[in-house]
């Protein structure tokens, strides 16, 4: 497959208003967050804060080995301990006919063979495949007893050789993670035009090459995953409180695929959630096991991961081993780009693991550049490591890292300024309305962009000319100062459903919003998106209040409970505002349409005679008007009412986008390196991002800050370290370096606005942009700082000893 015509649709093009030009003071304003009061007082309610009468505690027994045959599991001593209620093993779950969690995206081999899809039992039956693989579930009266009993379960393992390296995993003779997955290969896949790319490299004036490991990252949301499950035998109904970014998808997967229970008899509640970053998108076996167990013992069961358990079970991110090449002509134009990646999916296929190294990675490989030939080749493998799935950015950071490292390296190699090189190779500006969207060589059609606008603003904000002088002065003083660039594009709000379905997705990717307007003119909004830090309760209220001309206090936003909210796909991939926000606008439009009919009746005119301004329907050109509140009351007290009109103002809408949205931006990082220790210090970080129209700048900037910090973490500090036996050597917050306050600078953020042409708010997404951009910006800055040493590349994370060793070797 070289070309995907389904992707080329640009969808409906509409020119939308610039937000805020006609409305209240809410859009584009840094409204303080609605959710903060409870969170600041310690009155937020996270999953582990809930308890039920008569609840028991679950603790999983987990494998200490990365790869082993399960010879025996003896629970007799543990089960005899006081306070132990029940212990389940893999055999119990298997005998109950329960399969484990599933993969939600099918990516087939190049030759058309079906993707390998090894099973993932809730509790291991005959083999364990990564450290932390669950072997038994202990249920006891309290946590202490459960932990003691888990330690008393005697498991006899026959330890096998393990495989950790994604490339080595494909070699003949490598340890086999699953018997039914030869050479540990789940699929191979390619995108782009191979022949043209071959030709570009044959005719190249200059070729830049890099090889690297985009290292495995551990998500480390500060709230560990947790579940509180309850089965009510009176009405055969399950309830699951859990740390989910998408409770409806969890309900669907658990009900329809894992436990085979009627969907309407399962209520999933994701209350306040303490960060996700992708790791809480997925429906994990652990939560399913607890839910199943609650029915078996007839009592509520609670399970909360401890941190090391989170290291062993939360899906990791990245883990790509890549060779990347860029071809240039004699004038410094990019003529071709090629990558070959071995992507580890870990020991089992998590829900969206397969789309991350393919449709979220290969499709972004053209970046912002007019490269006429691009070819991406990916081999996805299983290894004896914790499963890998989406982590903040998900595939797009890996693609951006490849491109942006190549671009900075190529510019250096041909002696051109990296900013000038980018400006020379950028796709020219296009707004998606007057100019068509931009069709790439790797299937996507970008919606709108002004890439040089973002970079020029970043150069101005950085005062680049002066910065270069500072760098020269620093170097002449013997200091190591470097400037690094990253100009990125990302694709978020994955859509439309028909296209992603044709590419193997087993779900739709729309979202939903119901609006319930009350008789007194107050509004309750029910959304399918889930907020775990993004501030939806504020941003969504802003757009509703603004559209209906009412106050923020008049709108209440509810999310996270499948019993109340419509079936939405949750929050990930920076999709909430672009997709769910659009569904909200559809429902708001329906309220306004019906409201106009009621208002027209009251004003004895037609709806076409009316305009809706500042919360009132007014007869155009007159002072005759009726307010939103009056219309709401009339809708519910319909004494004097339009004929054939139903009472009420209650609407639900689904929105399936016409295309992805494509935020972009330019980041500049300035570093100084301590010559004696190799420690990298970021002294300035300048970011210009374009996420289309902005509803709440404060929240947008906050998303950029957090995203940038996450990407800096990958560049300088983070990475899962495995030994050859598959042990995760840094499985605690003591050993795994999460960025701290004293590692970070203040960030200098700014934005440009290029509205999305195909959604009603003209918005894109911002949750992952910082992470996608910052990692290569930091690495490029470090390499720039080390350029006098002749260092051309270093493997992440750029910890002091690695930087120091590179300097010593160069000496």
């Amino acid at each position, binding site marked *: 497959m070289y070309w995907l015509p389904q992707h080329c649709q640009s969808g409906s093009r509409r020119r939308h208003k610039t937000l805020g030009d006609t409305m209240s003071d809410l859009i584009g304003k*840094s409204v*303080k*967050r609605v*959710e*903060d*009061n409870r*969170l*600041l*007082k*310690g*009155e*937020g*309610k*996270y999953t*582990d*804060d809930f308890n039920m009468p008569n609840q028991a505690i679950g603790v999983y027994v987990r494998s200490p080995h990365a790869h082993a045959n399960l010879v025996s599991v003896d629970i007799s001593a543990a089960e005899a301990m006081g306070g132990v209620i029940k212990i389940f093993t893999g055999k119990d779950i298997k005998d109950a006919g329960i399969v484990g969690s599933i993969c939600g995206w099918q990516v087939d081999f190049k030759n058309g063979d079906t993707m390998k899809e090894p099973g993932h039992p809730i509790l291991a039956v005959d083999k364990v495949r990564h450290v932390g693989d669950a072997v038994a579930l202990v249920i006891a009266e309290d*946590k*202490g007893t459960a932990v003691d009993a888990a330690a008393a379960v005697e498991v006899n393992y026959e330890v096998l050789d393990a495989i950790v390296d994604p490339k080595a995993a494909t070699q003949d003779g490598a340890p086999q993670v699953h018997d039914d997955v030869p050479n540990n290969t789940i699929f191979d896949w390619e995108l782009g035009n191979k022949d043209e790319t071959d030709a570009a490299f044959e005719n190249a004036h200059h070729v830049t090459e890099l090889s690297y490991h985009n290292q495995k990252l551990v998500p*480390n*949301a*500060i*709230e*560990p995953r947790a579940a509180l499950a309850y089965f009510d035998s009176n009405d055969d109904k399950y309830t699951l409180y859990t740390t989910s970014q998408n409770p409806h998808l969890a309900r669907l997967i658990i009900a329809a695929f894992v436990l085979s229970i009627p969907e309407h008899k399962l209520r999933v509640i994701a209350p*306040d*959630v*303490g*960060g996700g*970053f992708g790791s809480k998108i997925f429906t994990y076996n652990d939560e399913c096991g607890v839910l199943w167990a609650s029915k078996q013992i007839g009592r509520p069961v609670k399970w*909360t991961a*401890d*941190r*090391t358990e989170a290291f062993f079970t939360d899906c990791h991110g990245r883990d790509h081993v890549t060779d990347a090449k860029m071809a240039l002509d004699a004038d410094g134009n990019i003529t071709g780009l090629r990558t070959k990646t071995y992507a580890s999916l870990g020991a089992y296929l998590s829900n969206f693991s397969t789309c991350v190294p393919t449709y979220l990675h290969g499709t972004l490989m053209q970046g912002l550049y007019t490269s006429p030939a691009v070819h991406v080749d990916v081999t996805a493998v299983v290894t004896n490591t914790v499963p890998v799935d989406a982590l903040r950015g998900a595939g797009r950071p890996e693609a951006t890292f490849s491109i942006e490292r190549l671009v900075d390296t190529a510019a250096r190699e041909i002696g051109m300024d990296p900013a000038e090189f980018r400006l020379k190779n950028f796709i020219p500006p296009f707004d998606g309305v007057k100019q068509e969207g931009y069709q790439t060589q790797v299937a996507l059609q970008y919606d709108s962009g002004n890439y040089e606008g973002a970079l020029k603003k970043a150069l101005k904000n950085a005062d680049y000319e002066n910065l270069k002088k500072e760098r020269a002065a620093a170097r002449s003083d013997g200091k190591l100062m470097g400037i690094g660039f990253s100009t990125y594009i990302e694709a978020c709000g994955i859509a439309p459903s028909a296209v992603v379905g044709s590419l193997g997705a087993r779900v739709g990717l729309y979202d939903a919003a119901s609006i319930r307007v009350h008789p007194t003119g107050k509004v309750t909004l029910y959304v399918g998106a889930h907020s*775990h*830090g*993004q*501030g939806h309760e504020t941003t969504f209220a802003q757009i509703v209040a603004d559209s209906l001309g009412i106050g923020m206090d008049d709108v209440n936003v509810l999310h996270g409970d499948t019993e109340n909210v419509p079936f939405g796909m949750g929050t990930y991939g920076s999709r909430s505002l672009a997709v769910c926000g659009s569904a909200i606008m559809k429902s708001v439009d329906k309220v306004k349409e019906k409201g106009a009919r009621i208002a027209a009746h009251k004003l004895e005119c037609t709806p076409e005679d009316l305009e809706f301004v500042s919360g009132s329907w007014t007869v155009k050109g007159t002072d005759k008007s009726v307010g939103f509140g009056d219309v709401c009351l009339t809708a519910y007290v319909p004494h004097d009412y339009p004929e054939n009109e139903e009472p009420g103002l209650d609407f639900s809408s689904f929105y399936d986008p016409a295309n992805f949205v494509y935020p972009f931006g330019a980041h500049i990082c300035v570093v100084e390196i301590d010559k004696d220790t190799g420690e990298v210090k970021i002294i300035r970080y300048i970011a210009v991002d374009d996420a289309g129209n902005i509803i709440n700048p*404060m*929240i947008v*900037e*906050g998303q950029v*800050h*957090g*995203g*940038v*910090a*996450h990407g800096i973490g990958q560049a300088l500090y983070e990475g899962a370290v495995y030994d050859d036996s598959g042990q995760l050597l840094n499985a*605690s*917050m*003591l050993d795994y370096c*999460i*960025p*701290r*306050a*004293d590692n*970070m600078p*203040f*960030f200098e953020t700014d934005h440009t606005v290029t509205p999305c042409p195909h959604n009603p708010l003209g918005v894109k997404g911002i949750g992952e942009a*910082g992470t996608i951009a910052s990692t290569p910006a930091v690495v490029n800055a470090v390499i720039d700082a080390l350029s006098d040493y002749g260092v051309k590349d270093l493997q992440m994370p750029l910890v002091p000893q690695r930087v120091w060793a590179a300097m010593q070797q160069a000496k």
Partner: protein
Amino acid sequence: MMKVSMTVNGTTYEHDVEPRTLLVQHLREDMGLTGTHVGCDTSSCGACTIIVNGETVKSCTLLAVQCDGAEIKTIEGMSTNGELHPIQESFREKHGLQCGFCTPGMVMSSWQLLERNPKPSEHEIRHAIEGNFCRCTGYHNIVKAVQDAATKL
């Protein structure tokens, strides 16, 4: 089981606890004060930071029995009659929180810093909260919030 008594946010609690019960468990499970969070098991993340006898501590590093007779303040005791403490108010003003999970610990560590050093530099603020992990904010707005709080206290 051992009997322990402590005053938390002005209320005296008496419980029988297992000797191995952590202070944070005691607060969350026996007293229902769930504003204090647990994010790790190595005293690294700081989400469980509270004030014991005027000093901030990570409440996962102490046993409940070690705190017999102690005077404790948790995040639930920071606001007064529903009104946010100035530090909490600054976190809200400066968008110093997103998911909110690290926030109670951050507020407590910020309180201790400002008690000891009413006019801290940026460097001193970053140093003071380095034992509290936040994955959402990049710390930018948390530092801004502490700077803002310093002007109010």
